[in-house]
């Protein structure tokens, strides 16, 4: 318990920057500032907290700002690391809508902004129903400057070919719905689903490949077969990485795709 408490206390030292309403002219704070940690996030967002915890949520600070009958809720969440914060962003952005150059990635709609920078994930929501884009842009630009750290995107994003990419997400556990693949990135394309899972070492990755062979009852390296739910798929092992494609449509070669993806990795 002491180790747990010490760990939590250390993590809590890195609290998220507290947003302020004076970051945009004419806005003032309504009510008290909000602060939540993993243990009580449910008090704020009962029924949705688990989605944050899944990505290694550490803390959240928020305020509600008002001006001329409009209100904007601003919440900044801190996650364990930049990859996790980006993961939270990638799980919540709408892949059908365009992104915004904001931090390491953002998305703006008339009543909502989400963006990520370093280990922080910011959410702004405006009320009532109308176009709040100008105010949301002003706040989000100021908050982006306020947040410390890098605006670099996770290195993994560059591994996936951009052409035809519909979305790319960090999956915090069970990539492809397989517990063996603990955590990794998945990119969706019209022709299939690319994935990269990083293990702690080449040996660990090789061991996972062995377990995949055992689980699916197929041999080979690369490991290529057709699964009822994952379709035509191929796993390639390269150093500490397990790389591949699943649900590959006819007309594309899973092995060729997986090999090309593996070649893009360090």
């Amino acid at each position: 318990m002491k180790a747990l408490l010490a760990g939590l206390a250390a993590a809590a030292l890195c609290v998220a920057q507290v947003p302020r309403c004076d970051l945009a002219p004419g806005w003032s704070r309504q009510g008290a500032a909000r602060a939540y940690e993993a243990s009580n996030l449910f008090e704020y967002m009962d029924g949705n907290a688990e989605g944050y915890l899944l990505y290694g949520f550490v803390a959240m600070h928020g305020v509600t700002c008002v001006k001329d009958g409009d209100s904007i809720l601003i919440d900044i969440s801190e996650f364990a690391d930049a990859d996790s914060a980006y993961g939270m962003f990638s799980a919540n952005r709408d892949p059908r809508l365009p992104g915004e150059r904001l931090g390491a990635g953002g998305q703006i709609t008339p009543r909502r902004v989400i963006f990520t920078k370093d280990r922080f994930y910011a959410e702004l929501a405006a009320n009532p129903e109308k176009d709040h884009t100008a105010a949301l842009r002003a706040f989000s630009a100021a908050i982006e400057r306020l947040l410390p750290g890098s605006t670099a995107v996770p290195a993994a994003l560059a591994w996936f070919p951009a052409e035809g990419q519909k979305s790319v997400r960090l999956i915090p556990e069970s990539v492809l719905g397989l517990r063996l693949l603990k955590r990794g990135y998945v990119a969706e394309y019209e022709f299939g689903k690319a994935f990269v899972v990083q293990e702690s070492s080449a040996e660990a990755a090789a061991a996972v490949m062995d377990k995949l062979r055992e689980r699916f009852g197929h041999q080979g390296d690369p490991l290529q077969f057709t699964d009822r739910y994952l379709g035509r798929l191929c796993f390639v092992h390269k150093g500490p990485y397990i790389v591949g494609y699943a649900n590959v449509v006819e007309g594309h070669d899973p092995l060729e795709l997986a090999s090309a993806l593996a070649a893009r990795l360090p």
Partner: protein
Amino acid sequence: MPDSSRRNFLIAGLAAPVAASAARSSADDQKHDTPPKAPILTPEFRYRTLGKTGLKVTSVGFGCMITSDASVIERAADIGITYFDTARVYQSGNNERMVGAALKGKRQNLTLSSKSGAKTKEAALADLDTSLRELGTDHLDIWYLHAKTKPADVTDDLIDAQQTAKQAGKIRFADVSTHSGQTELIPALTANPHIDVILTAYNFSMGQTLDPAIAAAHAAGKGIVAMKVMAGGFRNTKPGDKLYNTFKKDGALVAALRWVLKSSGVDTTIPSMTDMDQLEDNLKAMTGGFTKSDEGLLARQLEYIAPLYCRMCGQCDGSCAKGLPVADLLRYLTYADGYGQFSLGRERFQELPAEVAQVRCDTCSTCTVNCPHGVRVSERLSRAQELFA
């Protein structure tokens, strides 16, 4: 806008500009439903009827909230799980879209639920239309008013929204979900003739706190769905924690699910599932009874958390002779002791009325607060006073 409505508000902001690209004619889909693929596993499924709705569902359903790969949902449906739950707010709407895609072609054989946390009839009905579009269906079997904590949250306006949706054929049953405040809320829902199904957090860490309310609701014909059945704490167990290895043992998590399934008042459950292994573990829970081994495992978890952590069951409300808000004080202490947020704990403590903040537990010869879950209340409150006062 109240904070609690924020999540649905966020969704509303995003949903408006979304093109109808995801919209499908669910009626057309359902006409062309393809037969389900043959099951891969043949577990012994247990079905229960969801109160007076008449819906027959597997005793283990599927909570889709944190599922990230559609293949797990698709497989669960093929295997024979018949109840799937999502919400407008999950993953900012991405979850409903994934669930809809995973269940395409299977809809007519399944019970499907979603939720809206909207505060007004207009906003709730707008949420419902978005849910139907994203899920690719023309109706929900169950539509929950999401995350209500007290009777006053279930307003006439929201009940009217559900009745309007029912009359329009967009939902079959009107329902409410709750994570806290159940001892007060469930009896109120039981007495409400417009509510068909109650989705409640229910797990071993609550002991028998909710059993009377659940039994009465069940007897009154309400369908009872249990969520948070794994007690959450398992997810927070990390390498290095005392119980990590114990709980990571194959099948151990199922003990918590079996505990819920042994309750005759619970019709079905919706444990969250992220992978095929979890799915298969949960299927085992459906067929196996609660064992002595399960009991021992859960007892160890309770023993681990009991002395320190308040479960906010509310059973100690009003029991302090000096009028202390016991659960609140314990929570403030957790901010400081458990999470290193001393300033937050102290800030909350200092917001207490002066007559409460001045109370010192060491002036009482005996403590009138008896936590049914074993929290050492007097000791913990004394520490809170020492730290914050």
